[in-house]
């Protein structure tokens, strides 16, 4: 399946792009992270510690063990600092 993957804040900076389309058969967010990590060093660096990251599936916060089935947009970012 094709998924839009978005990166924000220092995740975006480390990977070097804000958004990409990814072809994946990963069943869960965690499996997708493993695939991305294996790509290149910059991905490995961005995803080195997923406890420092948050994920949203189709613009809703989710857990890393959440299934990707039917999801069109995945976003990775650090803990939010609004307000």
């Amino acid at each position, binding site marked *: 399946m094709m998924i839009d993957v978005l990166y924000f804040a220092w995740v975006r900076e480390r990977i070097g792009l804000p958004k990409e389309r990814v072809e994946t058969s990963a069943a869960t967010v965690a499996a997708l992270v493993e695939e991305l990590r294996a790509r290149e060093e910059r991905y490995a660096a961005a995803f080195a510690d997923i406890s420092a990251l948050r994920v949203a599936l189709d613009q*809703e*916060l989710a857990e890393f063990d959440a299934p990707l089935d039917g999801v069109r947009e995945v*976003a990775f970012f650090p*803990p*939010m600092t*609004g*307000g």
Partner: protein
Amino acid sequence: MRVSVQDAPFDFAGEAREFAAGRTDMGAIVTFSGIVRDTGDAPLLEMMIEHYPGMTERAIEAIAREAQARWALGDVLVIHRHGRLTPGETIMMVATAARHRGDAFAAAEFLMDYLKSRAPFWKKERTAAGADWVAARDEDEAALTRW
């Protein structure tokens, strides 16, 4: 309920005036405004706020609806800027109107606690020493447990 995510500056006081205008049914109006603060070791040159267009509005609207479900509110306003800000500028505001002050205060604090940690904004501060992403504070995450 009004939610605005915008790069344009806004006038906190003017928004508060408009929010409160003409109400004779609500006795209590609480506002919070957050201002870019310059208190680090190196003078702050600017703050850049990144956000997640689409999700930001959805997340804030969900938080505001939750506040309306929990407390007896007449109205809720949330304005949050993104983009480049300088010290002294207003980053964001919330306003709540209620019959009783307890509801207005609790809802405003709830909105702030959730906006801090659950709305997709990220702040980066630039000083002469360089630019750094603002780290999330443990106490902001902990603040959510009281609700």
